[in-house]
């Protein structure tokens, strides 16, 4: 069951290439917008380590993730694939987990890989770039996991996008805070261990809650038809 589900996800990823490239492109674009709209930002960063940059980067990652989450279950819901999955999967829990994993791979993971580049653009101190990558790797799973809960409940709505934002962004807050903080700590040369523990803990708690809550949410959405 796992291999065939993975194979399907990979095929869809390849066919709809957009799903990998687009979040990244959105992130790059909005970073660019920021730099254009607020050039003072980078100016100041060139003088001293910018604690602004880390916050802006993480916020943009959050918003990107949000945009990508909206379509997480929509296609499967509309086509009836979702109902077939929940009805026929040997272990629906695993099916949901695979979906979340793939969502993370196609957004959070890719974003993490490119984050040092964005860090440079925003003026994060070079010595903190690796930590930037690391904070993204640690934090973005929580975004995909918690986001999945919101996406599952709102997939039945036509105007889901923004209700999703309302439900999910408050939950993203701790990740944002610790993520940005970790980068800043690295920039200022302090210890990053507390933030590492915090981010790890958040991701773990999300992992414990999200698949069950998502399943419940999907069941509710399927009843809405």
């Amino acid at each position: 069951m796992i291999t065939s589900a993975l194979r399907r996800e990979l095929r869809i990823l390849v066919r709809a290439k957009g799903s990998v490239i687009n979040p990244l492109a959105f992130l790059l674009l909005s970073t660019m917008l920021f730099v254009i709209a607020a050039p003072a930002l980078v100016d100041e960063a060139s003088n001293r380590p910018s604690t602004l940059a880390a916050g802006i980067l993480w916020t943009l990652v959050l918003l990107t993730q949000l945009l990508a989450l909206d379509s997480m279950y929509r296609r499967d819901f509309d086509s009836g694939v979702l109902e077939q999955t929940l009805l026929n999967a040997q272990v629906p829990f695993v099916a949901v987990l695979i979906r979340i994993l793939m969502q993370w791979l196609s957004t959070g993971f890719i974003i993490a890989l490119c984050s040092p580049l964005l860090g440079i653009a925003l003026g994060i101190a070079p010595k903190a770039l690796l930590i930037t990558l690391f904070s993204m790797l640690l934090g973005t799973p929580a975004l995909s996991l918690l986001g999945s809960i919101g996406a599952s409940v709102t997939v039945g709505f036509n105007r889901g996008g923004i209700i999703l934002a309302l439900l999910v962004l408050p939950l993203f807050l701790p990740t944002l805070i610790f993520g940005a903080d970790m980068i800043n700590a690295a920039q200022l040369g302090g210890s990053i261990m507390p933030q590492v523990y915090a981010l790890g803990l958040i991701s773990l708690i999300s992992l414990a809650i999200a698949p069950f809550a998502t399943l419940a949410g999907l069941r509710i959405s399927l009843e809405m038809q």
Partner: protein
Amino acid sequence: MVSEALKRLWHKLGSPRWFFALTTPWVTGLGCAALILLLWGTVWGLAFAPADYQQGNSFRIMYVHVPAAMLAQSLYIGMGVAGFVGLVWRMKLADVAISASLPLGMLVTALALFSGSVWGAPTWGSWWEWDGRTVSTLVLFFLYVGIFALREAILDSTLRARASALIAMVGTINIPIIKYSVEWWNTLHQPASFSLTEKPAMPSEMWLPLLVMALGFYCFAAFVVLLRMRAEILQREMHARWVMQWITERRVA
């Protein structure tokens, strides 16, 4: 034997009719208590409590602000618990409770935010400061708004109940995380010039009225939630015989 009795009690608890009958006498009691406590606390707090040696009279906003902020959190946690009960035991009453506390919770949170800003103007010199407590209250407000938006979006009552129960529950699990992280963030970045974390060393003439006000707020909340729950029950069970009976009895009386 005991488990049987417990089971029966649990079953009864789930029955709106039983709840309605049980709470009929409470309404007036809670209403009166709220009225008396609020009046007493207000008069005491506004007229008799001594002025603060630093803030003068502006500190009196505290008698609204602090109870409102406390109630805002309590109501959300209450909703989370109701959500858990509703999801696990499919109890209809749980959703009645959520729908009854939601608007009040939003209002009270808004009140805490508003009174805080009004207080901030003289003490901080600005309407808004980004600080641990202000942020977690703001986030709480958004959590309320999220559930509200969700409820608006779902037409079917059963599904609305399940969805909002789920989200209320997830939100409640996250509240400690959010609170902790926000406090951490604040301590790292904000100078502690206006820290609220230290309990102000207040004379008892100042905090006793606060206690009365807080009790008054809680009684008032219980009163409003109960009233709204009862109204909701009547509406949902509109066609049930006992509702008809209740209405005719009231007409006669």
